[in-house]
């Protein structure tokens, strides 16, 4: 087994040097990490699992990578090896991203971006890597399905002043402020995405399309009492029937309040707050504005 291991590692090294990542991973995955013939310590096992997962991820192969990250997850909790632990976290975030579990991926990327140490073992953590992790967190949050949890993560990211330096910040700001994103902005955002983030979904929308249309629909619901599907289609830059289809699904999934009048081809957005509550809110706003005026007068010594 010892000799086989050495040969496999050598071959994997060669494959890696030729950037044949999956072949290198397959070569290493042939090593029997659970053999009773030899004493193998957990750190070695963990390092192999993480290394194989990283190789599979170089080819965006989330399925095989996940198999080894799952093995690693039993070992990582007791590992004191910080470099391996960090590599494990990065692999796990990337697998979630590839599997389009965007919100979970975003939380893990964000966690990685908050590492304080700049030196872990012999590895140097440079600012650019942290910025990449932060940017990946923003991208995944934007691509995640609209809803309260996504809103919370958006708020966290928007308030993290490191984000204001990211190239992606203007999009983050508009998404957080629930503003409609126009086609040029969406196209610019699309440039930054990885292939799997632009992949076609079974319902013939790309991941990006669906995220953007849902976001714009929610933004439109903040601006409109009601809107015709023709106008909504123009506003969102999609055919009216597509707008209706996504709107109906969001209403059905209770991620947007409203009703659809198919005869008139109009969607009626409902305000979450009852009329009387709206009245209360308006009165609160009025009193706040009055206070502001009185504060200004006091400041000016009037």
């Amino acid at each position: 087994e010892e000799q086989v291991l050495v040969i496999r590692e050598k071959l994997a090294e060669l494959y890696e040097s030729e950037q044949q990542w999956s072949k290198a991973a397959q070569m290493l995955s042939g090593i029997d990490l659970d053999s009773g013939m030899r004493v193998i310590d957990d750190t070695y096992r963990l390092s192999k699992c993480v290394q194989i997962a990283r190789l599979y991820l170089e080819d965006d192969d989330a399925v095989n990578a996940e198999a080894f990250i799952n093995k690693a997850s039993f070992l990582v909790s007791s590992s004191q090896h910080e470099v391996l632990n960090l590599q494990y976290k990065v692999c796990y975030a990337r697998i979630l991203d590839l599997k389009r579990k965007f919100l979970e991926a975003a939380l893990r990327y964000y966690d990685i971006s908050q590492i304080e140490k700049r030196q872990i073992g012999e590895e140097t953590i440079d600012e650019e890597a942290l910025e990449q992790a932060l940017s990946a967190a923003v991208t995944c949050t934007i691509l995640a399905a609209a809803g309260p949890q996504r809103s919370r993560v958006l708020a966290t990211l928007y308030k993290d002043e490191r984000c204001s330096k990211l190239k992606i910040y203007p999009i983050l700001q508009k998404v957080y402020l629930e503003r409609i994103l126009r086609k040029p902005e969406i196209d610019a955002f699309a440039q930054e995405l990885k292939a799997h983030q632009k992949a076609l979904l079974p319902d013939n929308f790309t991941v990006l399309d669906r995220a953007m249309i849902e976001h714009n629909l929610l933004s439109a619901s903040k601006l409109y009492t009601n809107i015709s599907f023709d106008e909504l289609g123009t506003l969102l830059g999609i055919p009216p029937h597509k707008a209706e289809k996504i709107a109906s699904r969001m209403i059905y999934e209770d991620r947007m309040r409203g009703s659809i009048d198919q005869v008139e081809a109009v969607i009626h957005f409902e305000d979450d707050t009852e009329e009387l509550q709206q009245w209360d809110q308006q009165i609160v706003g009025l009193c706040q504005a009055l206070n502001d005026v009185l504060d200004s007068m006091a400041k000016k010594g009037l």
Partner: protein
Amino acid sequence: MDIEQRQAELIDQFVRQASALEGSALASLIVDATSHPYLFAFSEILAVPSVSELEGTDNSLYLNVLRLFVHGTWSDYKGNADHFLQLVPDQILKLKQLTVLTLAETNKVLPYDELMQELDVTNVRELEDFLINECMYVGIVRGKLDQLRRCFEVQFAAGRDLRPGQLTNMIQTLSSWLATSDNLLVSIQEKIKWADTMSELDKKHRKDIEDKVEEVKKSLS
């Protein structure tokens, strides 16, 4: 941050600059101020002495433009175009934004037809994009667009510079609001008093009943 806070610094900056300038230098300052994306108040600049001295000089058209931005609308500009200079696109955009603020002064519900006419807009999509991108997203108004009723319901609109004579009816509005609020507070006090009285009576009535029950029990036993 609300509009007033955001533009306070800008106003100070332009007033300071205007106080130190004269003639054509003032004219270009007026163009800068009336083109600035975050400035929607101009009466402080108009009040600078050197600005009003432009009257009757070669640069008096700039003074007319500034007056137009203090409380004029897009229709005022179109109706007297020779009285003003040719506005640049940023000024046109701002004057249209200011026109929405003026319209929102009188009504909380602005019909699309009136808006389209006042803003020289030919279709609903163009009007709504203007209201969304150049008004609501800039923060000068907040409200809801109602396509079925073809109107824009304004919940909040930033204050525009006051027109001459506007102060009087503002004071009237405040006075009647104060009177209404006082009356409301008085009637709420009366309601509370009435409720207290009723609950006292209710308690007394309940006690009487309980006493009677006790008496009846005693007489039975």
